[in-house]
């Protein structure tokens, strides 16, 4: 059992919120759920829709073909109706007077999805009271009105004698149905983040909202600043004072943070930078997905300094890698960039998240007896100097953006330049060696064709290779690149296919230059919409032939 529901309408018609409610019902009813939100960068008047995919087996992404289509406007239906599966059930404004019903019930347009839920509940034969409990639980003071609408939908479906089946309760125990951004936020908090600073930008803003809303119970602060530059500099100030800090943004905002990322690298302070990618260049298509900031993440910031770049492939990894990003940032005292994208951050999925895992933050602390007088940039065998925050008695912490002596005083003597550059090179070497042990790749399946990718295409790839003799190698750490681990995995592979969501093939280029072996086929997608499993599957089939 694996079906997809489409609800389309304009902004203001509760598409996003409603899809979450419907997702919740199926989650609690024992099914796996994946929700993808497709919306425009305008507040009203768009043709937004959500896909709620429901399945008995684990699902990894949206399907992009529909079994049920509900549309509150005809234009959104016209736009997507070719994505209907053969026997798709449809209920549009032409068939059902959504607006009138809302009006009559004295309800709000954003409650329309509850009508849909009623129809679905009837058609799938889910116990009515089960669903009403979920609504009750989820919508609080808005519940009664929504239940009213739900019943209208239910009754309507009964009257019209819509097809109905009896969907039995699934066996899966309900899991949290989380947006990627929520998972990122929870991961950050789990590993000790205390300060989150940002400037609103789609598709990262929901993280700011989630953290701001829950700041007190999470013991953190989540702040909106005047711009991205202020956000990252505020976060860096907190990091200097000894408190784990993070900023979140999207491409255009990342651009603006470049100077401070270089600063963080030079002054050797920990900072986690989240880039939720969207369609560029420039403003582009702000609410659609793309993976086109990879080159930027690898190279942003003038001059040379150590950096780490990690890319989660799904919501679960988003949690875990954000948590790890803090561990790395603190231990190596350098910027860590987490590359998410709209399809991860603004999609929701029933996810097994290791909430109880610990991600202890270790930092090389200063030990007076061992280290002698405190020198912020003390030369050590691994390039990492002991850290002490200001406020430590008998310690003076001089942090300095100009090239500096071990004490942190400004100096541009040639020998200082060489010494400090080599200190940072040594730190990079340490990071590289450590990362070799951690093998930052995930490998799925076996076969003599390998698919290589990073980030959000993971879900579609996993579904597309099912039953095929294809090995999938997901690269999780882009910098350092897990060269040895990848080489080992591709040793006996005959053909390599790369999959990524951009028009340059940035990942394929990176792969080729790090691995020294050519990609045989580059699969690129750059229409802003995530890969569909079946789309990829037919490409892979072609290659296997």
């Amino acid at each position, binding site marked *: 059992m694996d079906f997809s529901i489409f609800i389309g309408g304009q902004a203001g018609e509760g598409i996003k919120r409603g899809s979450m409610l419907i997702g919740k019902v199926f989650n609690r009813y024992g099914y796996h759920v994946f929700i993808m939100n497709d919306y425009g960068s305008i507040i009203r008047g768009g043709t937004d829709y959500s896909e709620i995919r429901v399945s008995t087996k684990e699902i990894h992404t949206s399907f992009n073909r529909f079994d049920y289509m509900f549309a509150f406007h005809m234009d959104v239906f016209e736009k997507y109706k070719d994505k209907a599966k053969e026997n798709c059930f449809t209920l549009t404004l032409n068939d059902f007077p959504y607006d009138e019903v809302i009006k009559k019930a004295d309800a709000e347009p954003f409650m329309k999805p509850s009508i849909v839920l009623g129809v679905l509940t009837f058609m799938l034969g889910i116990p009515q009271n089960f669903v009403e409990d979920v609504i009750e639980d989820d919508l609080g003071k808005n519940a009664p009105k929504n239940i009213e609408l739900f019943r209208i939908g239910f009754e309507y479906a009964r009257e019209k004698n819509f097809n109905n089946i009896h969907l039995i309760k699934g066996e899966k125990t309900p899991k949290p149905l989380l947006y990627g951004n929520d998972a990122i936020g929870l991961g950050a908090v789990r590993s000790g983040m205390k300060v989150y600073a940002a400037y609103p930008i789609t598709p990262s803003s929901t993280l700011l909202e989630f953290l701001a809303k829950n700041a007190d119970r999470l013991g953190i602060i989540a702040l909106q600043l005047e711009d991205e530059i202020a956000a990252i*500099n505020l976060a860096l100030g*907190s990091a200097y004072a000894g408190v784990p800090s993070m900023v979140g943004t999207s491409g255009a905002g990342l651009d603006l943070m470049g100077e401070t990322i270089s600063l963080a690298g030079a002054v050797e302070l920990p900072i986690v930078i989240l880039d939720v990618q969207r369609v560029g260049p420039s403003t582009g298509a702000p609410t659609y997905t793309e993976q086109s900031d990879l080159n930027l993440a690898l190279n942003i910031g003038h001059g040379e300094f150590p950096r780490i770049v990690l890319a989660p492939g799904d919501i679960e990894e988003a949690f875990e890698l954000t948590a790890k990003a803090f561990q790395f940032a603190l231990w190596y005292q350098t910027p860590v960039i987490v590359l998410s994208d709209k399809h991860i951050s603004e999609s929701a999925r029933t996810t097994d998240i290791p909430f109880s895992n610990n991600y202890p933050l270790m930092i090389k602390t200063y030990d007076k007896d061992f280290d002698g007088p405190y020198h912020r940039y003390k030369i050590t065998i691994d390039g990492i100097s002991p850290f002490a925050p200001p406020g430590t008695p008998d310690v003076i912490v001089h942090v300095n953006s100009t090239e500096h002596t071990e004490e942190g005083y400004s100096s541009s003597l040639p020998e200082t330049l060489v010494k400090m550059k080599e200190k940072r090179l040594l730190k990079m070497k340490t990071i590289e060696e450590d990362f070799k042990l951690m093998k930052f790749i995930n490998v799925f399946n076996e076969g003599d064709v390998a698919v290589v990718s990073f980030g959000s295409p993971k879900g579609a790839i996993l579904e597309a290779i099912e039953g095929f003799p294809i090995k999938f190698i997901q690269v999780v750490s882009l910098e350092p690149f897990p060269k040895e681990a990848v080489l080992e995995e591709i040793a006996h592979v005959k053909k390599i296919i790369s999959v990524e969501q951009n028009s340059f093939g940035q990942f394929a280029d990176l792969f080729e230059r790090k691995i020294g072996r050519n990609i045989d086929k580059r699969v690129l997608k750059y229409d802003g919409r995530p890969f569909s499993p079946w789309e990829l599957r037919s490409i892979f089939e072609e290659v296997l032939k």
Partner: protein
Amino acid sequence: MNLATDRKIQWCPGCGNFGIYNALKSVLEKEIEEGSIKKENIVLVSGIGCYGYITNYYHLNSFHTIHGRVPPLLTGIKLANPSLIPIGFVGDGDAFAEGMSHTIHIARRNSNTKLILHNNSVYGLTTGQFTPTSPKGFKSRSTPYGNPENPINPITLMLVSQATFVARGFSGDIKHLQYIFEEMMKHKGFAFVEVLQPCVTFNNTYQYYKERVYKLEDTDYKPNDFNVALQKSLEWGEKIPTGIFFKNELPTYEDLVLKEKNLFYERNIPDLKDIVNEFV
């Protein structure tokens, strides 16, 4: 107590930065000696400019950061650990060109930090271009035929930006500057001090200011009325007022944002169970 480091001070002989450096030094030394502040809690932050090297010369925690970004760093430090006392140094280029936005925003947030403006009306370190405080017509390396822009008035701008402590000193009058810095240290909330700072090499205003400055404290001026302060701030010409223009105590940004949290000491990590359950 001597806060000086062993670094050779490299400003031009006669530079107005010396006055600022020395005035603050003696104020901080006194406060540390008297025990009213702990040495390890002071954090100096400077941007890039001649003045920016000042952090090399105090034996105190410091962050010599990039050009224009001192204010958000100050707030970040204060939020992370409210025991710390962040004091920022900014140049006029730093504060009102590259960093204009931050300077205004830190003021309107009333972030409990201090900001000292080294106003020499010139880019010193990049060897003599005009800045947002240079007079119209000012001949500089980048405006050989005269500055076409109207200068901003830092005091007026900080007042309308709702800074809760706004003062002006003159680096040629160290005694008075000490008084201002003492008051600045006492203030809870955002404290802004403009210091008129002659740059002997590119804009030697020593004589000019000496002939014009007078102290508000020598008049019957009271720094407790915003409208009066705003009017006063516009005085600039034959007479230039120095002293405290305005002072007011209001809730700080940190108070409002932290709500008693102490992020530095409270390091317990929530187990997230409750919150996660809401997502089921």
